[in-house]
């Protein structure tokens, strides 16, 4: 017994020593590789965040020193703003559409297109193309598509013998129209993540199930989807945070209109904070958005953790 204990202890000593050695060995790469990203992250992410947080307690128009401390007044102004509610509602709609329409569509395409062949590769590229397009360019393209005077939609309407509405000028249609663009733009990205996941599933597993007579749908439901769980987890996370930060597609499409009905939280921030030169107000919006994103991230981790435990 005693000898075993000693042996274990000795073994432990070796492990500890080895770890120390590893630490020293990894210190050099650490010192070389960490600073660039740490500095970039600090300068372009952390400091601006701290700045925005500071601005949010001041009234400031962007020029000169920041002196006019107003406490939580900017936060009160944001929450009482007549268009803030619409902006939050729209952002939540984007989250819902991303999760309930975009991701299932991406999954369906991924499963259909996960085999390798030339025609499938072409289709995959076509679906991925919108994601590679710059957001502003995509917005401008769709502005043209939707344009009721010179666009594509009235041409389609004429062909069908009906008159299409001016969707971007209509308080009701503008939201579905934007959702269509968002889905079109980003589903290819999620599809690619899912395809990568699907291709990592060992062929033998699927083969074996097939030999056992498992139906196609059941293979998807019980083998493929569970096996790309981690890809789905990543996708859902990107979909939520991306939806909360949606900005560049809205500006060229509608600029938040008509009558402020299509603002998201970030276009609201830009319109009423930056363009009005009320940077304190803008700072308050960004802090609220940041808190929302952090809550989502933490809650998501917790939920996942709990699911994993089960």
């Amino acid at each position, binding site marked *: 017994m005693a000898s075993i204990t000693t042996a274990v202890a000795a073994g432990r000593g070796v492990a500890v020593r080895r770890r120390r050695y590893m630490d020293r060995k990894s210190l050099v790469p650490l010192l070389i590789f960490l600073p660039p990203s740490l500095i970039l992250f600090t300068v372009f992410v952390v400091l601006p965040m701290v700045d925005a947080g500071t601005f949010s307690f001041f009234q400031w128009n962007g020029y000169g020193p920041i002196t006019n401390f107003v406490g939580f007044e900017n936060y009160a102004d944001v929450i009482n703003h007549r268009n803030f509610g619409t902006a939050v509602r729209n952002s939540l709609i984007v989250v819902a559409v991303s999760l309930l329409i975009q991701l299932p569509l991406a999954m369906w395409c991924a499963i259909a297109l996960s085999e390798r062949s030339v025609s499938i590769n072409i289709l995959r590229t076509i679906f991925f193309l919108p994601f590679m397009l710059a957001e502003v360019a995509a917005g401008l393209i769709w502005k043209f598509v939707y344009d009721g005077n010179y666009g594509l939609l009235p041409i389609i309407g004429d062909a069908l013998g009906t008159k299409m509405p001016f969707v971007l000028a209509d308080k009701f249609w503008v939201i579905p129209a934007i959702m269509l663009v968002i889905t079109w733009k980003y589903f290819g990205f999620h599809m690619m993540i899912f395809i990568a996941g699907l291709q990592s599933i060992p062929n033998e597993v699927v083969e074996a199930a097939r030999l056992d007579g498992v139906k196609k749908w059941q293979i998807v439901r019980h083998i493929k989807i569970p096996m790309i769980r981690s890809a789905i987890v990543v996708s859902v996370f990107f979909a939520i945070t991306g939806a909360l930060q949606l900005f560049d597609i809205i500006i060229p499409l*509608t*600029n938040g*209109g008509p009558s402020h009905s299509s603002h998201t939280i970030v276009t609201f921030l830009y319109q009423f904070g930056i363009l009005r030169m009320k940077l304190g107000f803008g700072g308050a919006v960004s802090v609220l958005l940041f808190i929302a994103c952090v809550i989502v991230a933490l809650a998501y981790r917790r939920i996942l953790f709990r699911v994993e435990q089960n």
Partner: protein
Amino acid sequence: MKRIALAAMLGLMALAPVQAQTVVKYLNIASIPDEVKLMTEAVAEYEAANPGVKVELPFLENEAFKAKLTTLLQSADAPDVFHSWGGGVFYEQAKAGVLRPIEGVLSQEAKDAQGTAGVAAFTAPDGHIYGIARDVAEVVLWYNKALFTQAGVDPESLKTWDGFLAAVQKFKDAGITPLAMGGKDKWPAHFWWSKLVVRLAGQDGFNAAARGEGDGFAGEDFVKAGQFFLQLAQLDPWQEGFQAATYGDASGYFGDGKAAMHLMGDWDYGAMKDNSATKQGIPDDQLGILPFPTIDGGKGDPTDTLGGLSGYLFSKNASDDAVKFIEWYNAKPVQSRFANAGYYIPIVNGAADGMTNPFKVLVAQDINKAHWHALFFDQALGPAVGGVVNDVSADLAANAISAEDAALQVKEAVDDAAN
């Protein structure tokens, strides 16, 4: 290592003569290609005559310009000279110390040539002169004569507000879009509200409200302006989908002969052609300018005009060369070229004399005899209040807000900005 350093130093020394050149960056918003061509030609002339100076002409589109300027002026990349509409935004910039006072460099000649109105427009409340006036602009009611004939509307009948509303209805009945409107950009809508305020409240009323006196912008005249605007909006006078149309879209729509009228600045003469499908726009003999309808009981003077008095401002680090260049550029010989081509109406004495474009001549006369030349409200009131004016105007055009609520929102913005 030493050798490399030495080589580098020698290299720098070789470059030195090039760097001794002063660079003058003039950030502008000119987007019509032929106008830009005139600008580059003028710059080439100046550079040839002044070998020590290099003039660059960075460009930003109107909306992007407004959004980026604040940051740009406080960065190392600040332009030496930039376009300005004067008013509240200019006062903010002067107060923040991002501008250079130029009274020490500015020649008496250049000062005199702008006239008192020009100098006053670029003098901040602190008494310093920070810029040079370039041009005047007026918002007018452009109309398409062919469509008036087609609908049987007599332009004379639009002299009063009631006559104007009747004409709008007549166009509707004839199946012609009465008015073009770029609702997405919002500022085109604020011309309507501003024009009504100019008519109803007049100079004294507007200035008192801007200072926050009495009921401010929630006062009777301003509510009335909203009500008149709504009277018009309820006739559904704009082109379909106007809320998604930019200024450029609306300008092209009018230029294509699809709308009978367009309330827009005199610059639309060129823009309307440039934005039209054919690039030709409405031919001169089919195009006309109507005075904005008068309103019974309005406190404004019938000669009052709304528009701009814009120019150039100098940023904090601008060199004397920058001022000298603009003095040269803004003098009659260069400015008369822009006047003759019809791009804008130069303020500099005599530069507009050779103008042959009948519309521009008419506008210049209007402004000359105006009792009050009101600056664009969204610029005069500064970005925070001006933004709200644009918002409520767009909402009024869409019949999406009450006149009382609109007036109250503007008043609140004034109170808020005063804090």
